[in-house]
């Protein structure tokens, strides 16, 4: 099994086998985090452009660290400092960046579909680091890797997602990935954040239920994904923080309704004491710091995968089948040579 695409724009089009391949590759990069010498020279001389048109600290640092541990350099473009503020179009900014000859572009943008649009206009691999409310594929992968490490498998789990699911690209990537492994979902939050359309976003046959009471939402859960209450994506005050805490905060008492082995994920940054109580955030069931460590392994795997191949053979979604056939042929050639 290998990977068909030139880019990583979303998890939705990937098969369960491809997702397993990406998780297995990430697992091998986890090992490297334990080496005394973490820095490799594999991508030496290559450059990753990090274009974050929306504020981000941890994802940008995580991709930057992943690039540097593989020996690649990175160049940074940040929203506040960028010429977008001066009226340049997204495409012009991206073309300018691309004229500096990076070998891969990692981008985040407030508009859904922005990474896809840019990828269609560039001839280097593009990794979507979050586009509007659409997807955040590397987060989906690192969450799945964390769950697989703790629970042993990502098959047929009961997954509860808490909070503002409507505006969450993390929730969508989680559902697209875990849904392909037979997981069932409980989406729980205030009604305006959990609209009915969400029941249809998963892969065909994925069991997605919406519940408004948190006690019901947590019943028997194996995995609880707590989303950050994202005030910057809300345009009017709909619910006060006090009300949210009262009705939806994940605290120790509510957690008792879940499977005693349940694990808790949070994409960060946490509003400690709002969507999650400090005792739960710091408890043994919380995986938030493992998620951060795994994020680097996943991003190293992605950069390695998309940047290590030869550029003329790297496929795009249209010619994917052809390029994987070439890869298989090359692999065969390699193994039959067996010389050195």
């Amino acid at each position, binding site marked *: 099994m*290998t*990977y068909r695409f030139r880019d990583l724009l979303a998890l939705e089009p990937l098969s369960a086998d491809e997702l397993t391949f990406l998780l297995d*590759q990430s697992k*091998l*990069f986890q*090992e*490297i985090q334990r*080496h*005394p*010498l973490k820095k*490799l*020279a*594999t991508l030496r001389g290559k450059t990753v452009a990090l274009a974050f048109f929306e504020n981000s600290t941890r994802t940008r640092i995580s991709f930057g660290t992943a690039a540097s541990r593989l020996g690649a350099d990175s160049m940074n473009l940040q929203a506040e400092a960028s010429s977008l503020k001066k009226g340049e179009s997204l495409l012009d900014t991206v073309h300018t960046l691309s004229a500096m000859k990076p070998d891969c572009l990692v981008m985040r943008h407030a508009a859904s579909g922005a990474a896809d649009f840019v990828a269609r206009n560039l001839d280097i691999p593009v990794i979507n680091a979050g586009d509007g409310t659409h997807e955040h594929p590397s987060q989906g992968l690192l969450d799945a890797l964390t769950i697989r490490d703790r629970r042993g498998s990502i098959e047929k789990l009961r997954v509860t997602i808490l909070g503002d699911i409507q505006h969450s690209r993390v929730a969508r990537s989680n559902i697209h990935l875990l849904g392909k492994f037979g997981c069932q979902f409980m989406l729980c939050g205030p009604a305006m954040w959990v609209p009915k359309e969400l029941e249809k976003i998963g892969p065909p046959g994925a069991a997605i239920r919406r519940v408004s009471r948190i006690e019901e939402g947590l019943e028997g859960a194996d995995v609880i994904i707590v989303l950050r209450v994202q005030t910057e994506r809300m345009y009017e005050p709909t619910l006060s923080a006090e009300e949210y805490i009262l009705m939806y905060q994940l605290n120790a008492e509510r957690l008792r309704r879940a499977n005693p082995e349940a694990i808790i994920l949070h994409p960060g940054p946490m509003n400690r004491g709002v969507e999650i109580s400090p005792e739960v955030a710091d408890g043994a069931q919380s995986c938030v710091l493992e998620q951060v460590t795994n994020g680097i392994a996943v991003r190293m*795997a992605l950069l*390695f*995968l*998309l940047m*290590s*191949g*030869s*550029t003329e*053979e*790297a*496929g795009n979604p249209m010619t994917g089948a052809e*390029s*994987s056939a*070439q*890869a298989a*042929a*090359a*692999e065969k*050639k*390699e*193994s*039959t*040579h*067996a*010389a*050195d």
Partner: protein
Amino acid sequence: MVGLRELMRIVEKSQLMSPSEIDRTIQRLAHEIVEKSGGTKHLALIGVRRRGVPLAQRIAKAMRGIDGVEVPVGTLDITLYRDDLSKVASHAVLQSSDISFGVDNMDLVLVDDVLYTGRTIRAAMNGLFDLGRPKRVSLCVLIDRGHREMPIEAQYVGRSVQTSDTEIVEVRLREIDNEERVVLVDRVQP
């Protein structure tokens, strides 16, 4: 797009080793390693993926037969250290390395099937030094076919073979290939 190499036909020219010859060679290599290492206290074998791995395991088994010594065996994947990644495939695929012991101050023997340009061994040494500082690293190969591009030599050699540049030495092992022999093949114009 098919290159000239793919159009060429691969023909078998001769058999370099039979199953029993492979077996005897492994026994001899095991003896040589034990003898030259002067004690097995800090000795460990590192099989280079893929065919170095079963070879290292067989040598370790042969060493147990010599004086009951239990030598740890590790597995090293060199994908991250190759200098020709962009020539291999559209997407490179990493395999697992498994070295469960510390390499600091160890006497390591790298094991591979064929020594050719020396680039694989260069990559393997870079990989090893990311894990620590071994006291000594030596190299054991089943076949040395010449044509070196690096200043690298093997201390333990199963058999040296004169080859031309178009020839390929194929080591086939039952653990991987369901077949056990070493053959010399050549590419010829159709």
